[in-house]
């Protein structure tokens, strides 16, 4: 029985590994058509949404996040496979380095580029991203800073569909945004939504658990499943696999439950140590705790976030 089970695990593990992945710098990745105009560059280091137009000479390429620096050349090469049109817009969903790795190279003056873009390329971000990048000691060169910022929302049309960039205040950080491709029916959620771990509630950079839960509920307001809570609006997480409303729901439920447990401890006057000892996220830790961001770290962030509310 146990041997049969182990054999089955081995078979399914090999099946789950998938056969379509490519590799760059030792990092597995895949370019996947999501739907409509939107593709997803998915790697174990994070995801990028790529919107491409169908009308040469008029349309172009739009990126949501530019990925980690070490995959920059691979990402640019994969974009060129999807479209020969210039990259005209970039939108970054957070101030995280792994979402801004190719900002600088894409924003360089045209003469020094070895790929096709236009000199008037725009990089959108919530204003707080620029605020953070432009602070002394940020380590981010001005050549990688956003060129256009917004406070709450920015909408425009590109590649034949309406695009909404919506600020999600104080969620993972204070610089988060989500991007809704209204025609393609796709949302790029950035690090507000991950399938690879708990969300990093970055208190030092303005993140909060209440903002995180609120942002997930907002995503659920925007998604419409095709049928039986499946398909329809597809959601590209900051890290992990392509998802839909049901997956976001599962994640929202988990965070709400853990938040409520921590809130209950606070209501009872329990200390952080007592909250830690209660292992309030243990039923989700095997699935979402990672060495870089453990369940304990997440619970501590939730505790501190609620306490300073």
């Amino acid at each position, binding site marked *: *029985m*146990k041997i*049969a*089970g182990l054999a*089955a*695990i081995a*078979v*399914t593990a090999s*099946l*789950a*590994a*998938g*056969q*379509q*992945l490519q590799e760059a710098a030792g990092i*597995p990745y*895949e370019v*996947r058509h999501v739907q409509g105009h939107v593709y*997803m560059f*998915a790697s174990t280091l994070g995801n990028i949404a790529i919107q491409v137009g169908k009308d040469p000479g008029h349309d172009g390429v739009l990126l949501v996040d530019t990925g980690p620096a070490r995959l920059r050349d691979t990402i640019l090469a994969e974009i060129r496979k999807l479209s020969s049109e210039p990259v005209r817009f970039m939108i970054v969903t957070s101030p995280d380095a792994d979402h801004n790795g190719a900002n600088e190279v894409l924003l360089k003056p045209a003469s020094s580029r070895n790929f096709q873009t236009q000199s008037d390329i725009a990089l959108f971000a919530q204003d707080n991203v620029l605020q953070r990048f432009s602070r002394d000691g940020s380590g981010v060169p001005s050549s990688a800073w956003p060129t256009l910022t917004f406070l709450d929302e920015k909408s425009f049309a590109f590649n034949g569909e309406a695009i909404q960039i919506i600020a999600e205040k104080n969620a993972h950080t204070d610089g988060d945004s989500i991007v809704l491709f209204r025609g393609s029916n796709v949302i790029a959620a950035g690090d507000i939504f991950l*399938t690879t771990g708990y969300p990093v509630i970055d208190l030092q950079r303005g993140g909060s658990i209440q903002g995180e*839960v*609120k942002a997930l*509920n907002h995503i*659920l307001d925007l998604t419409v*499943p095709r*049928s*039986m*809570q*499946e398909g329809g609006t*597809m959601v590209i997480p900051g890290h*992990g*696999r*392509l*998802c*839909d*409303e*049901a*997956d976001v*729901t*599962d994640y*929202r*439920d988990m965070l*709400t*439950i853990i938040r*409520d*447990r921590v809130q*209950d401890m606070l209501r009872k006057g329990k200390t952080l140590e007592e909250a830690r000892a*209660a292992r*309030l996220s*243990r*039923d*989700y*830790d*095997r*699935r979402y705790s990672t060495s870089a961001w453990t369940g304990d770290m997440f619970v501590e962030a939730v505790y501190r976030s609620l306490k300073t509310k």
Partner: protein
Amino acid sequence: MGRAACAVAPLLIGLLAAAALTSPPAFAQRGMGFNPSGMWTAMYHEDELERTDPGSPVGDYLGIPINDDARLRADSWDGDLVSVLQHQCIPHSAIYAMRAPTGLKISTVNDPASGQINAFIIDGTYTGPRTIWMDGRAHPSQFAPHTWAGFSTGAWEGDTLRVETTHIKAGYLRRNGIAFTDQATLTEFFDLHGKYLTLTSIAEDPNYLTEPLVRTESWVWNPYQVFTPIAGYGSCLPSPEIPRPYGWVPHHLPGANTLIREFSDEYGVPFEASRGGAETMYPEYRKKLKQMVIPHAKVFEVQFEQEHHKQPEKQP
């Protein structure tokens, strides 16, 4: 041939002829054990109380090899969750769907040139149509979306159809909150015994199960079955039936769910046993049960009263 054999021979021929009429036809495609396409009516002689309405009581984790994490998750589950908009139309996922009340319609997808079967379609479950790819294709990558049905590939092992399913959305092993995660996988074995189709399924979840969960279900071949898709499948539209706060997710806080003792109290099962775990799957657990205090089963008392038309004594 002796006299006795002569007497038995016509009977045997008759039985074989009858079997030929009442069994699905033998399947001749090379490398394939049998063709399961057709109509199959579900049999509920196994785990009937769990599989039909109303399903397993809250707190009944018996026979499921869950770990402590899954136990806490199940203890936290609140049945009100189905009133949340995003939960109203969630169907059973592949790991549970074949246990649900269902009559199956199994059909084939054939290569138009060769007639070779490229896939089986299993319809009639709450998951909706499931496709079992038989053309040797690979499973999708780790970045592909998950679905309620998952992604299934099949291969013949002798006369047994073995199906591997990955990319399943998170769901429930039992309809009382025993969950599995989106990293769970399913291995299934379809066998034909005369006119009976038997499915042996093995669910594995690295997060919540300490051992594979093995379950079986059976169907009987029924060419007279009129196929009707599961009521509401594909047409379910969520609507706010009860006013709820925005973003409300019902759940029980750790240690606060008093309902989980009801199963133990009602059915006279020691509470410790009702908590499930791998050991409760095996016959040897009876020895441990004998050392526990067996609570009085209220459900039998109620049933006795009902069967003997006695009115419960009025409280003073």
